[in-house]
């Protein structure tokens, strides 16, 4: 019996490590033009990097990829009210993360966040969904500054949210991918920076 229990937890542990390795390729370190830093996630088809508005307060940022490559990026859209921003780079981005359906999350579902907390590269943390999903996801997970803008994935490794806030009570908040899709579809109060520049 002991052997079975050990192997079950060892398998879960191994699977989490595999998930973390896979996810790391789609998560970038974001350095904002005004000294801010956080994380970003390469979005599905690989064309854009999604991060938090508060991670990139200025018009440009530098991205550091999982292999150490540095790329200049510019903000092409932002929605301060949703705390979301989209970045574009001139070069090729790594493969994008698969995006899941945040509305299908249930209370108790396992989630993994990946970002760059306190400057630590690609650090995973494990937690669960606290309450029924909405525009914002409520999570019991340990997140720190630098996790902002990174990836929050479900047990299948699909992105379901963008971590953006922690409270003092162990509760963390993430922008749901439902909200990100609305932001990217233009059906929100997103300002398109490229248009703003023409004014």
């Amino acid at each position, binding site marked *: 019996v002991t052997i079975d229990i050990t192997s079950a937890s060892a398998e*879960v542990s191994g*699977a989490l490590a595999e*998930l973390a390795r*896979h996810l790391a390729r789609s998560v970038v370190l974001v350095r904002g033009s005004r000294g801010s830093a956080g994380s970003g996630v390469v979005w599905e088809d690989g064309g854009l990097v999604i991060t938090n508005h508060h991670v990139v307060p200025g018009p440009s940022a530098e991205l550091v990829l999982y292999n150490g490559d540095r790329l200049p990026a510019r903000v092409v859209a932002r929605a301060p009210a949703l705390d979301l921003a989209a970045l574009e780079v001139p070069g090729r981005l790594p*493969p994008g993360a698969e995006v899941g359906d945040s509305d299908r999350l249930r209370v108790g579902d396992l989630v993994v966040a990946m970002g760059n907390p306190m400057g630590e590269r690609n650090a995973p943390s494990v937690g669960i969904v606290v309450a*029924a999903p909405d525009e914002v996801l409520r999570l*019991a997970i340990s997140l720190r500054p630098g996790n902002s803008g990174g990836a929050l994935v479900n*047990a299948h490794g699909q992105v379901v949210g963008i971590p953006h806030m922690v409270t003092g009570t*162990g*509760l963390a908040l993430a922008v749901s991918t439902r909200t990100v899709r609305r932001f990217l579809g233009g059906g929100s109060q997103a300002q398109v920076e490229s248009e703003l520049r023409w004014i």
Partner: protein
Amino acid sequence: MTLSERSSHLLASLSDELAETVQRVGRSVVAVHGRARLPGSGLAWRGDLVVTASHVLERDADLSISTPNQQQHAARLIGRDRASDLAVLAVPGAALVPADRAREALAPGNLVLAVGRPGTPEPIASFGAISSTGGTWRTAQGGVLDAYLRADIALLPGLSGGAIVDMHGRLAGMLSAQLAGGDPVAIPTPTLEPLVERLVAGGTVKRAYLGVSTQPVELQDGMRVRLGLQQRSGLMLLALEPGAPAERAGLLLGDILLSIGERTSEDGEALQMALGPRAIGTPTRVRLIRGGALREISVTPVARPE
């Protein structure tokens, strides 16, 4: 970029089981309305009985609960013990469904879910591991409990009075955000059961009482060696209440208490710990030094007078 099928299946199964456990346990966790701000949580203990944390009840009357299927029922406070942060509510006609209770003790490293219902339609939950367990301890409110569970879980607002459950969804204890001054600590089910029964029977949790006033004194090295004692201090009796158990048992001013039952009494804290509710009416062996010699006397503590 996808995970291997094996890993994905394994993590998805774990995720499913966690979510299903939250739903199942959530059927036995109610919302407790007894304060102005966010409601607390409560455990369905019997069909018509709810156990909750005393501190979530900021009033004694005008109390109610919401059941998992969104029905609100008036509740009557039938007993509370602030020192153990425990309260029992009678909810006639609620037809609640209690959770199965865990029989085996949890150990550090065991995974647990905390499940609450702070007035939300869905239960809320957090997840982690047992970080420590232990025996008799003093709560932040000055109570004495004979065991605790401490878990590495997010103590979300409104979780107090909710359930800590094992991976089978069995009730391992009741959570309180205040018993250990803000640490996520639970009263284990086996400790909870007799406390709840006492509250149901008598309305309060009585503490045991000897009727003594004491002061810690350091034992002389020579005396310790001569008497073969390990402990470095004892409690000297400075006053004895007339007619109280200590005096009736023949204890005298100046006696130095060394132990009560199995517990050494090196300081007043240790004496308090020895006088939990279970000591009431139980003949208890007291070991002491009188006139430089060891003595043993049997004392039967009574319930502390109000």
